[in-house]
């Protein structure tokens, strides 16, 4: 046993400096598309056509990226022709329209929140990123977040996946079993939108049709730091990000006329 103690001490502190300061290590986030500075109307329409999930829309002289739908396929950024800008970062979580207040629960909850993780049809990636939150790099325990196996002790219901027909009832039962106040956090494009699997006879279009969502974390999968940001947003300890990136397509009006 001694060797393990020494090994642990020898490794030293590995935890990220986030949320105190930004984490800059390579590969912590896949990034996401952002509207380019200057773009023609034709280019905007081409980008819309290349996006397989309808995350990029160009209409009425506006180019919009809805991050709920973005699945990181990189089709708008790679290949020939117009390309979206790519922005690094991971502070992606925001409150839904239903819940605009910054704190859904009493202040005494702020420091310690227990999370029930429910896989409602996940492909494995979002869940694996949630799992990474307990590794020494992210170590969410230092911020007062804990995974609990039972809904009876949970404050936050963290849902990943598109809510398949056969997972709908267990998900609802888990939600019902949680004490109030409770917060529902939907993580990943499948939980926020139709993703790539829905809608179909077995896969739904995310959590919103089943449960009221409070915090959304977009991404496919959102990297661990984005999920951590979501938890901090839910706890009222970090400012939320905007859910979409909207801009006027420059020159579009002139070209349409």
């Amino acid at each position, binding site marked *: 046993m001694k060797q393990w103690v020494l090994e642990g001490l020898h490794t030293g502190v590995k935890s990220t400096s986030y949320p105190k300061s930004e984490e800059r290590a390579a590969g912590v986030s896949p990034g996401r598309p952002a509207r380019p500075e200057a773009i023609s109307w034709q280019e905007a329409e081409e980008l819309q056509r290349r996006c397989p999930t309808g995350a990029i829309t160009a209409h009425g002289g506006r180019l919009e990226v809805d991050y709920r739908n973005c699945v990181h396929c990189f089709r708008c950024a790679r290949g020939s022709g117009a390309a979206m800008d790519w922005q690094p970062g991971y502070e992606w979580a925001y409150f839904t329209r239903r819940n605009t207040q910054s704190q859904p629960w009493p202040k005494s909850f702020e420091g310690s929140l227990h999370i029930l993780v429910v896989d409602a049809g996940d492909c494995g990636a979002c869940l694996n990123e949630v799992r990474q939150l307990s590794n020494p790099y992210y170590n969410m325990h230092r911020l007062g977040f804990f995974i609990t196996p039972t809904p009876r002790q949970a404050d936050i219901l963290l849902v990943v996946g598109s809510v*398949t027909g056969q997972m709908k009832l*267990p998900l609802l039962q888990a939600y019902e079993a949680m004490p109030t106040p409770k917060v529902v956090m939907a993580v990943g494009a499948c939980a926020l939108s139709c993703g790539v699997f829905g809608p179909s006879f077995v896969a739904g279009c995310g959590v919103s049709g089943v449960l009221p969502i409070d915090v959304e974390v977009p991404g496919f*999968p959102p990297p661990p730091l984005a999920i951590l940001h979501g938890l901090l947003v839910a706890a009222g300890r970090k400012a939320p990000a905007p859910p979409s990136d909207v801009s006027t397509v420059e020159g579009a009006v002139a070209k349409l006329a």
Partner: protein
Amino acid sequence: MADLIEMTRQAEERWPGLVQSWVDRRKPAAELRCSRSEILPDVARWLASDLGYRFAGFVVEEQPKEWEIRYLFYHPRVTGWVYVLLQQALEVRAIPSISSQVHAADWQEREVEDLFGITFEGHPRLGDFVLHDDLWQEDVAPMRRDFDEETALAERKPRPDWRPRRIVENPGAFVMPVGPIYSGVTESVLFLLETVGEDVIRAFPRLFYKYRGIEKIAEGRTVEDCLLLAERFAATTAFAHALAYCQAVESICRVQVPERARWLRVLLAELERVRHHAGVIQEICESTALSVAASQAALLEEDLLRISGGFAGHRYLFGLAVPGGLTVDPGDPACLRVVDEVRQTVRQLNELEQRLRFSSSFLDRLEGVGFIPAQEAQDHGLVGPIARASGTDGDLRKSQPYCGYDQLRFDVPVETEGDGFARLRVFFAEARQSVQIMQQIPVRLNAGAVQAPVAYQSGVALGWVEAPRGATFHWVRLGREGVIERYRLITPSFVNWHGFHLAAENFAFQDFPIILASLGLSVAENDR
């Protein structure tokens, strides 16, 4: 090649007039067309038991006038595929079950019965598999062409009083359900533990809570749209599945992938394998509550995720493989760097393995736990590291090479004990072999394009890859203008969950997480 031709000659001799054979030298593949369904179990038994072919799975296709059912076999030492083809009129609703002869077909037949409504005569247990009996009516068959989802959904009859079937009927015995939502960060699956108290007699998984109907929703999609499904239905091994799918499409469209893209694909596939295995090792350490080792392994897994993200833009290697090659070329310096980074990470994994090998409390919990006997592993047709830890040395990279694996030097680690510790050693050893493969890539990278143009045409092909969890098969039928007509997925987790109950037999409750972790199964890959 000669083996395949000899095999077809023997088959025609054994069943004169009933089996017609045909050999495609390009793939290479042989087709045995059975004119009567009664001989099917016998043909399957002959291939599997007498000739040593392995049953990979089967593909059911509803053609305009008939069922086309292909049983796919391959030999662990002979390159080439054997399809046993059965054509039946669409009115036929029952065919003989082969699972009494080839047990590996057991779950595959249950799946087809649930999704196509075809009954397998002689199968002991059909029903309640993919579509759960507590939600769906029995007569619904979603994979049929005339399936009407509106009616099927409207007619659903939820049965909240549904109870699982019990097998152990001893006094004092009871079924303890665990799941589908249980403990920590876990995928959704229900375990039915048949127990008399402290000891569990058997444990059966009830899967498909996450059934997303990938094979159904793929139909009618374009090749590009279906690529998103192939890549993302089991995203922890995304690149392997995307690669299998792309290879099937490339085979249909007769595209020659540029050499540079081929080697880069090997590099990415092995990077994914190392990352996946590090994750499994982490879960094994975690399950034995050896915290420092679990943390060390978690650091290495996250390191590998970051290396993947830095190298390819995405931590799970999304958006890279496309039919024709790859979407990006990371460049030679990045390839050299990634090989070096992975080599260093795996060196740390090796150090971890050495420490684990001398931790008696850790070994006590793994040795002899989750034992899968070699014969059972073969009978159940298990694949991947689980099969190789039970002495079955199958690896598609060796027997059915793709991507140029036949030009690379590597070993396939095999252990014979078949317990949790043997599987752990296989995961470590395979990670080392992956590094050895990766190190051979940079010198082979010639300058050139990484993507060839693809002109879609109609046709059908099999794509196969030795994914991190084992052999995976993607069967793709393209119609005109690159529209998917049939997409069949045979995944290693589906095959290996079938053997889960072998490992979970007569154990103490506290060993359950260890057995589960040591198998490294994915539920998403099964519930496709």
